[in-house]
């Protein structure tokens, strides 16, 4: 299991489009992804779950990867957050 803390960098935060990009990326890997924000936990492969995270720019999330390809999943996801979901 790997755990990482990431920050939302894109201006509009984790709105519908980045949420879709996030879930799509998570779905490429076998590993489970759990996202935690302020004691609130959701499944990172569930779009409706990710959509409930009111994550604005600057807020931080804890990502937990668990599975056979957790390292690759973690690299891909951290990169996606760094790029601000390619939003702007």
């Amino acid at each position, binding site marked *: 299991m790997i755990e990482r803390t990431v920050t939302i960098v894109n*201006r509009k935060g984790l*709105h*519908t*489009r980045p949420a879709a990009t996030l879930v799509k990326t998570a779905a490429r890997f076998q590993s489970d992804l759990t996202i935690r924000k302020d004691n609130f936990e959701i499944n990172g*492969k569930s*779009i*409706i779950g990710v*959509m409930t995270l*009111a994550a*604005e720019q600057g807020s931080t999330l804890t990502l937990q990867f668990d599975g056979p390809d957790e390292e690759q999943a973690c690299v891909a996801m951290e990169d996606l957050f760094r790029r601000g979901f390619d939003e702007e």
Partner: protein
Amino acid sequence: MDTAAGQEVVLKGVAAAPGISLGPAYLYSKLIPRVEEKSITPEEVEGEIGRLRNANARSEKELLKIHAYAEQKLGSQNARIFEAQIMILADAILMGAIETRIARELKNAEFVIADEITKYKQIMLAAHDEYMRERARDVDDVMNRIIRNIQDQKLFSKLEGASIIVSETLAPSDTVIFSRNQVLGYATDLGGVTSHAAILARSLKIPAVVGLRTSTKTVRTGDIVAIDGYAGLIVLNPTEETIQTLERKKRRFMEFEGRLVNIAGLTAETLDHKHIELSANIEFDTEMEFSREQGSAGIGLFRTESQLIGRASYPTEEEQYQAYRRVADGVFPHSVIFRTFDVGGDKISPDTEHEANPFLGWRGIRVLLDRPELFLDQLRAILRASTQKNVRIMFPMVSTIQEIRRAREMVSRAQKELDARALPYDPGIKIGIMIEVPAAAVLAEEMAGEADFLSIGTNDLIQYLMAVDRDNAAVAPLYQQFNPAVLRTIRHIIDAGHKKGVWVGMCGQMAGDPLATVLLVGLGIDELSVIPSVLPEIKKIILSIKYKEAKRVADKSLAMSTEQEIREHLSSIIKNKVPEIPFDE
């Protein structure tokens, strides 16, 4: 509401997407499926799950069609809204949970879906954020689609010929699917200019008016309706005269808009290079994109009251900070002027008290100074958003010098509190005031001595100066924005500001009236803040005139003694200088 057959009725709402059209109404009552809780037997579980999967597959097919159509019409960025809805349908975690509950709790599929999806919706609604509320609406849209498909209700999207859709509210998918059927316009009772449906209507170039409140009760399918997406109104049973007026307006706007495409990137300055800061009035951060597209140089008035909509209490410093930060970052490198809460009068307030005379009562800065905790929360939130030095503060309804001094003291206090928490802000933040009370106008020079800028709020200033309530039809004609008394007051304010070396702007409706532009430029106004939809027009006028000539126009207008003379004079000037400008008649 019953109206005599054939009688013309005008309904006023909010302009959401520009354009004018005329046609038969189609009253669209959204089929919100009724969901009943029913128990099923263990033998029925398989069949129930089968129905759920079928409905999902059908819903996906519908949404894929809508998505493909949206992609072609709106581009892939905008079509992504539907992609998210398709992904919800394919959400294995969600659907797994629903199937498990059907089998374990022995309940019908519709009930479990509604119950399960509503949980997520509640979390979104609890966020008290305009964006999350819109998102909850998308989730609702998917839920209703699945349930409707389970209940084998047909998706209604075929219309008989071209129509104006009249509805309580519209989901984004309604907006798109209707547009395949020659929709002439959208009129809704609810909704704001920032709803997804309004944004889509603008992209689809279909006129839309929202917030009509009673249109679904007044209009019936087949009634002839004219929709004016510039003025934000619909006319039921328009007379021949109304139709002709609107047709002319439409032609002029279309010709004019065709020529405006390339000026969004230009700076607003006169032919002899006098620069006018031309910015936008907005209420929600989602309007920033549109105002940028319209070519605004920043936000001249951000109405922070939008933070109070639908709330029972004032938002916390942190909630406000998040909102203001989004706006400040979004508008960078341009600036934004945050006007502190202007509650009271006709404006919303979470704790409204009944007053016999609200416009002369407890409102604007008066409320804030009486509620220091509330005021300090807001000031700290605005200050914290100012770290990029592109934020300004403006106080509404100032009527005395002491009020400015006390408000400035509050800013200092908020700054000290932030220092204590080691939070950064712009120490040189500019603080301005609205001039909208006649007493403040008379003392404009002294006021300017205490402020970094002045912004003339014409709506209230004219109402107080002329002693007329413009919502009262009996006296409405006395609400004269070109009355010589109003113009001389404006000149006095501008001159007073300049004498003290501070800039003077205007953010009332008059700033966005094309008839006023030459006059205001001639009077020496430094900034005009207008609703985004009229911005290109005002810019076009500024680009077409000389400051030197505008000064002469202003001098001549100010020497006149009736509003009518002044209007005629200004109208002849503009028709001569910028003949392509379309006017409301």
